[in-house]
């Protein structure tokens, strides 16, 4: 089946499952374009959550009663489902549920970084890393005496791959790279970076927070050692993140959080650890959230990840075209025509991003304004903040048109 057989999304049908999109503010219907921050949750995922609490809620792993068995099996199988979603052939043993992408980054930074890094070791990041990885590795490097280095971002929003090859060397222990930039929209060549990292015996950690939700991601095709993403950015609930790790690496890693469920044998003097992935899930886990995330994976696969990728890129390209008109808008990241994630960050010359977002809110157009958790990148670009419109499966061109109109209102107001 060729690529051309992929149907565009039936946005009208998809929207049916999202009552929140029918909300009105001041008589205007909500135009929700803040999906890179968090996506909305379709009825079938909300129903899964409510059904869980109303019918099978129980603690997992150890209970011998029926409810606990049901909850345990559903929770364990959720790991398998997520493994399948990202092409992890090792199944549940390679999937750790955390509370968000940020915790997934910290898990590796604490469990691996704090134990393995030392003076002389280098962690290579990119200038477009999100604070989730940038601050984490920066601080773990400070604790261990290792050094952080940053691959430069070019004018056109892409990574300087020559610089990458220069930075990644035999002292490199870890390369952490964002798959799709949440500020620039850039799709980074993670598989090429994985090869470079592996050539030098380094691990590669792919921040998939903005890629797993909106394109097919296959960890084994990329050859990622670690991949992190969040449920709340992919039609799932808040309070769950995922850490994928290659089995042999996770096996060798020390645990991270200590407590119940993650142990094997405990005495007053010492403890031994449970098998993967439970070794990394201490305490009562994010049971309902895990089960709901598996449902979100089903939901997204039913729509089709390749179709979602196209939809997102098309909306982004359309937005860039429409924004370009007046010549008073700077667009961050790759120019029109270059594939990107479903988001566009920009600045309207005369209007501060925060003012713009406040004014757009009057027309019920919800965008984000700020540094999008990439302060150092904004500093480099010489802007304190930017406005960002970001899309998901339920967004349409008509909504982009409303965005453009609302921007025009702001332009008038500040003229």
């Amino acid at each position, binding site marked *: 089946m060729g690529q051309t057989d992929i149907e565009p999304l039936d946005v009208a049908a998809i929207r049916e499952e999202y009552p929140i999109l029918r909300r009105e503010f*001041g008589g205007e219907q909500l135009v929700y374009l803040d999906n890179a921050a968090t996506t909305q949750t379709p009825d079938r995922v909300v129903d899964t959550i409510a059904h869980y609490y109303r019918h099978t809620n129980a603690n997992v792993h150890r209970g011998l009663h029926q409810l606990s068995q049901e909850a345990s099996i559903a929770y364990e199988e959720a790991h398998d489902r997520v493994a399948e979603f990202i092409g992890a052939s090792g199944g549940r043993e390679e999937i750790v549920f955390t509370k968000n992408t940020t915790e997934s980054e910290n898990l590796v930074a604490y469990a691996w970084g704090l134990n393995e890094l030392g003076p002389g070791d280098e962690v290579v990041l990119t200038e477009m890393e999100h604070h989730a990885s940038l601050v984490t590795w920066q601080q773990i490097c400070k604790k261990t005496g290792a050094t952080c280095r940053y691959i430069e971002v070019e004018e056109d929003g892409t990574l300087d791959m020559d610089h990458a090859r220069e930075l990644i060397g035999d002292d490199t222990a870890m390369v952490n790279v964002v798959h799709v930039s949440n500020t620039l929209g850039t799709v980074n060549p993670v598989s090429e970076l994985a090869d470079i990292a592996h050539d030098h015996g380094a691990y590669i950690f792919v921040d998939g927070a903005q890629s797993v939700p909106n394109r097919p991601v296959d960890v084994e095709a990329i050859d990622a050692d670690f991949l992190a993403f969040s449920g709340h950015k992919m039609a799932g609930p808040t309070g769950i993140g995922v850490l994928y790790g290659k089995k042999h690496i996770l096996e060798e890693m020390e645990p991270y959080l200590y407590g119940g469920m993650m142990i094997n044998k405990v005495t007053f003097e010492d403890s031994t650890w449970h098998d993967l992935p439970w070794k990394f899930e201490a305490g009562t886990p994010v049971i309902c959230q895990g089960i709901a995330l598996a449902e979100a994976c089903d939901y997204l696969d039913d729509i089709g990840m390749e179709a979602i990728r196209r939809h997102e890129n098309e909306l982004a390209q359309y937005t860039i075209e429409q924004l370009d008109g007046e010549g008073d808008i700077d667009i961050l990241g790759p120019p029109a025509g270059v594939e990107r994630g479903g988001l566009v960050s920009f600045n309207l010359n005369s209007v*501060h991003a*925060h*003012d713009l977002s406040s*004014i757009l809110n*009057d*027309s019920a157009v919800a965008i984000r304004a700020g*540094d999008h958790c990439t302060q150092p990148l*904004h500093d480099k670009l010489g802007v*304190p903040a930017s406005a960002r419109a970001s899309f998901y499966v339920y967004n349409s061109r008509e909504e982009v048109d409303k965005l453009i109109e609302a921007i025009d209102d702001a332009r008038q107001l500040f003229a």
Partner: protein
Amino acid sequence: MGIGGSDMYRQQILDHYKNPRNTGELENPTFTHVGENPMCGDEIRMDVVLSEDEETIERVAFRGDGCAISQASASMLSERLHGMAVDELRELDRDDIVDMLGVDISPMRIKCAVLAEKVAQDGADIYFDELDIDRTTTED
């Protein structure tokens, strides 16, 4: 619908934003202080000259960069501070600033609105009480 949006940008605010009063620096200010709103990137620097008995504000100037709310608030405050008793400045609070702006400020923008006030107050506190504040930052 909630507060925010163009309600927040009534004529007066836009006017002060587009034509800020009392901008620049003062020579030999009694005190000078700088503040920022790191999340937004708003920055304000205020120079204040007091009367000889140090009880009244004689002149104020500010420089800044940031959103309309933060900059208009600084401009309007600079006008109000003119001739104000220092004690009065030190007692200003969030409600006074909202009153001064004459619009409802959405909760997320309050820190933009009060930045200038905090800078002026911290400047006075440092000067009179030798407080150890390096740079003012407004957070929730």
